[in-house]
């Protein structure tokens, strides 16, 4: 059995706690035998009872306390049970954790990681299914990291906890937790970059017909589509960054995007004012892409419904990605 996205994260947490006594984990309902709402912290409290702290339902204080611990030499990992609850954390991240190193002139650092699952697909409805990462992009001093199914999620988490002076908002996607980290034989994957790498996946060695830029949860649908599209002789190159808070490196644009006419930028956030619009904006600044057909696909401008049929209508799905690709090529 291939390791799943969830197991990769679990194993990484066990490993960093074993390797580094500065790592503390805190959050709601994370103690064994429950082990967290999505089980990412399972087993930790049994092995490290002193370093795993079960908190009350106090998201602001969880991140506030973790910020204080980080200021005093620890490397805390705070779990926020649902990404939607990040709204309750916003003040701590925006006005304290991400400000301190910058406004105190690097006399302090805040090596804090806030982990949280985003996204729908599970029928949790409007306040437990959102993708709120757009609210946390564009904040100086705050990195937003999100592994796709083609990344090594545990390695990214380890980098965030051990090798970054933080703070890092680490976004996990609920729909990916149960997915194995396996790649279909017909898909070729290249990983580029060191700390927070970007993944380039292709369903052929042919020149791509469409380049798709995305991240996180949609990587599941894209990976499913790739072999199917290859059979249809539609060649795609999927580019999945893991660091969302920085726009694409110009070398990536030159080496992997320039020269292709059709570019699709997609995520499951509500439309506008987010990663998709920022990515399009940055691509528009390249002379080599001046004539490119750049399209976007995002979730609908509404809440995420609980009923499956309605949720499928609101969110980006594999079917909608496929239709969009066909439309771009027609």
């Amino acid at each position, binding site marked *: 059995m291939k390791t799943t996205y969830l197991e990769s994260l679990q194993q990484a947490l066990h490993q960093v706690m074993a390797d580094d006594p500065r790592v503390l984990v805190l959050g709601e309902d994370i103690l064994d035998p429950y082990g967290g709402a999505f089980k990412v912290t399972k087993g930790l409290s049994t092995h490290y009872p002193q370093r795993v*702290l079960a908190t009350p339902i106090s998201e*602001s204080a969880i991140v*506030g*306390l973790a910020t204080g611990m980080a200021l005093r030499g620890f490397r805390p990992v705070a779990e926020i049970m649902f990404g939607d609850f990040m709204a309750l954390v916003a*003040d701590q991240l925006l006005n*304290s954790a991400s400000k301190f190193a910058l406004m105190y002139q690097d006399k302090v650092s805040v090596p804090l990681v806030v982990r949280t699952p985003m996204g729908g697909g599970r029928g949790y409805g409007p306040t437990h299914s959102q993708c709120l990462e757009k609210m946390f992009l564009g904040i100086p001093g705050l990195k937003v990291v999100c592994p796709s199914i083609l990344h090594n999620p545990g390695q990214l988490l380890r980098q965030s906890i051990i090798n970054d002076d933080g703070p890092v908002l680490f976004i996990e996607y609920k729909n990916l937790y149960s997915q194995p980290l396996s790649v279909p034989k017909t898909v070729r994957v290249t990983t580029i970059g060191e700390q927070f790498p970007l993944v380039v996946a292709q369903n052929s060695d042919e020149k791509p017909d469409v380049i798709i830029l995305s991240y996180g949860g949609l990587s599941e649908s894209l990976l499913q589509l790739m072999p199917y599209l290859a059979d249809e002789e539609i060649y795609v190159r999927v580019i999945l960054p893991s660091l969302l808070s920085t726009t694409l490196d110009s070398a990536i644009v030159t080496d992997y995007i320039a020269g292709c006419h059709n570019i699709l930028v997609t995520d499951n956030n509500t439309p506008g004012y987010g990663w998709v619009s920022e990515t399009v904006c940055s691509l528009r600044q390249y002379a080599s892409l001046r004539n490119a057909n750049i399209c976007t696909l995002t979730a609908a401008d509404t809440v995420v419904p609980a009923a499956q049929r309605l949720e499928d209508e609101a969110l980006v799905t594999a079917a909608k990605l496929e239709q969009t690709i066909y439309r771009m090529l027609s």
Partner: protein
Amino acid sequence: MAEPISDLIRQMWLIRHTEVALLDLFSQGRVRGTVHTCQGQEACAVGVLSALNKDTDILFSNHRGHGHYLAYSADVKGLVAEVLGLPSGVCQGIGGSQHLQYKNFYTNGIQGAGVAITVGMALAEQYKGNNVVAVPFIGDGTFGEGAIYEAFNLAALWRAPVMFVVEFNHYAQSTSSYMQHAGDLRTRASSFGIPVTVIDGMDVLQVRAAATEIAASVRAGKGPAMLFLETYRLGPHSKGDDFRDKDEIEHHRKRDPLILSQHLISAQDYADIKQQTASEVQQIITELLA
């Protein structure tokens, strides 16, 4: 070793002269942004800091933090330079009045958030085995922020070595405390099992005595406690606008901590301290503006 009373008076005058000078610089157009002074609250800052170990204890102050900063560091030059936006400021001009950091002293201009951060710092030091007391300074206005109750709860639940210091100065900006808060603020922390000691915050010796006792208890691992200081902001919220009742201010002016402390030392010593600290501040400002 307790500092001599003359040192406490000296520190209070240093704060007062510095803040009067900052307001003066503001009116001359030399200070950008805003300045929140703590005139009338000097005994709180000096009394609490004199009870702490400045090498190891942790302070988290707020938007009205000059007094706390000076009582901790005596760094008039770093503070004034920071407020003037000079590179020699303690945060090189980035922070300004409300965002200071020096050794174990932190401030931020956000209400309430720092209380949870201080609890986190206290727990971190406790976990490391360091015998540290962490002190967040809050005002009565901050009791309107939900964040502090989350922090009170966790501090009490996990027995964090925290001494919460409340400076009850009766106003949040322009609004009287009684227009904002139901019930009695003095009793709020008690419901979390945090003992509260209410003290006259205008009397530096009372503040020091109470803070010393509470800090010792917190340091001994008996859990967090709150020092609730009854004080009054003699100056406006920031630079100007003050619509409070003049008689009310005059009433409290009679209890100015600098007046109340006058009898504690000889008239000559008191006059010398007042004069020396004024010259000290003036000299620093002259040098900074040169």
